[in-house]
């Protein structure tokens, strides 16, 4: 009686380890294609909703920042965006805060990570970069929209209807999403960047999120410039240039991606070999 009750949890644990050894999907995580579709889809939906909101309330309540309607419709949108940002940051950084337990079990029990399992991790990393790229697409749209809106209304606030999605949604979202990419690489695929058991921080981890950070940092400088020196919105003026320099840091995202490419081929090759030996055995 006592013996069986002792052995049951041990047996269950053994079964769990057996399962984890064979686990080919990124265990306990959303599959990467679903992450891409869900993350990209929700992100795109948020951008489209903001643009529809602008189409509705652009002229009716967007012209004068001192009115109560402006506070309701435009600052209201701003606060909604902040809630979304905080939620995205909390979910993104807590979901991937620990290294993958399946990887750890496979490494200790089999001496290697299952190739298909690791491919799922690489796919997830790539998907986070693609979702960040989607918010980059949003920056592309809202930044030039800002140039057009400044021709309609003389600047009377830093929270003008075109700044609300640009400076206070897509810029911070880029910091969060590129940060999640680096965070994911650090917690799941660090061995690809520094070698097995290696230490250190690859530069691309830091430079990729630095793009979003520098974009946001130049918001401060830009608003200072517009409130002190030139209120006119000449788009080619020098204190807009750092926005362009900031975006160049996103090239580091491709360093982050392409570092994993040789491993993708290795893993695909290993999977092909596994498949061919399996068919050999059955035949």
């Amino acid at each position, binding site marked *: 009686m006592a013996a069986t009750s002792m052995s049951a949890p041990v047996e269950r644990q053994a079964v769990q380890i057996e399962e984890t050894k064979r686990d080919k999907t990124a265990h306990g995580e959303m599959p990467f294609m679903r992450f891409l579709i869900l993350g990209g889809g929700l992100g795109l939906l948020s951008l489209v909703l903001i643009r529809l909101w602008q189409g509705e309330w652009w002229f009716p309540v967007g012209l004068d920042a001192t009115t109560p309607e402006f506070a309701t419709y435009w600052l209201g949108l701003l606060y909604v965006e902040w809630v979304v940002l905080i939620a995205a940051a909390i979910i993104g950084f807590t979901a991937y805060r620990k290294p993958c337990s399946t990887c750890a079990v496979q490494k200790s029990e089999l001496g290697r990570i299952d190739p298909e399992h690791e491919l799922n991790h690489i796919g997830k990393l*790539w998907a986070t970069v693609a979702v960040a790229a989607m918010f980059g697409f949003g920056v592309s749209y809202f930044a030039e929209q800002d140039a057009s809106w400044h021709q309609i209304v003389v600047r009377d606030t830093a929270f003008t209807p075109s700044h609300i999605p640009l400076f206070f949604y897509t810029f911070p979202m880029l910091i969060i999403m590129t940060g999640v990419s680096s965070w994911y690489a650090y917690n799941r695929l660090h061995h690809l960047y520094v070698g097995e058991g290696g230490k250190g921080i690859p530069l691309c981890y830091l430079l990729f999120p630095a793009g979003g950070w520098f974009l946001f940092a130049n918001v401060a400088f830009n608003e200072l410039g517009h409130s002190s020196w030139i209120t006119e919105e000449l788009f080619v003026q020098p204190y807009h240039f750092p926005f362009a320099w900031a975006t160049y840091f996103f090239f580091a995202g491709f360093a982050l991606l392409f570092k994993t490419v040789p491993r993708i081929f290795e893993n695909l090759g290993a999977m092909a070999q596994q498949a061919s030996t399996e068919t050999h055995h059955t035949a």
Partner: protein
Amino acid sequence: MKAEELAALGHHKMAKAFDIILLLALVGFFTVIPHVSRMLYMGDWDFWVDWKDKLWWPIAGPSAALLVTAVGHYLAWHYLRLPLGATFTAVFVLVGAWLSRIFSFYGLEYYPLNFVWPATTIPMALALDLMLLWSRSYLATSLIGGFLWGFLFYPVNWLMLMPFLQPVTLFGKTFTIADLMGYYFIRPQTPEYLRRIDEGTLQAFLGQRIWISVLMAGITCTLMYWVGIGLGKVLGVMPLRKVLRQT
């Protein structure tokens, strides 16, 4: 691994998924990066047809556009050995620009589209990629492709600009149609183009003026090509190798 084996791996279901994700990442970042550069360096010259002058636009325009296009051109060749990077970048920067012109300048503020159309760089991007494909040399591409990039910018876009350069007379004054549109569609936050741009003794060279600008653009772009290559190397390739050691 042999080439045929590598190619066979490319047909795997998982490899196809990676292709799609990479394409999405490339589209997003190679829209925003060249587009932000274009709007901040070429900015008002690209937004308004009356700013498309003969002095600064033919020089500032292609130089600004080449910077990030050269990075795309370099990264595509470096990582994927594809002579398509410049064309890809030139296409998606226009997608970004047209989305904004249609849905912001026209869709939200009712500026007519023929007042706010963006300049194209696709023909020169094709020339740049072809030069690299044929020569396999960044030096030859910079000297010929880079020069053509700057040199062809005005002639290529002149086809679209031409109708707006017709003279009109109003209240006894002669304008171009572009200038007249600039006076008609009010832009309270843009300093007017004549005050900022159309100055300088280059006016005295009359008919040669555009050729001087176009030649200068060719030379500037030959050099700008290397700024783009350097940028791609420092931010797109070097961070892959460099690891900050924890002590």
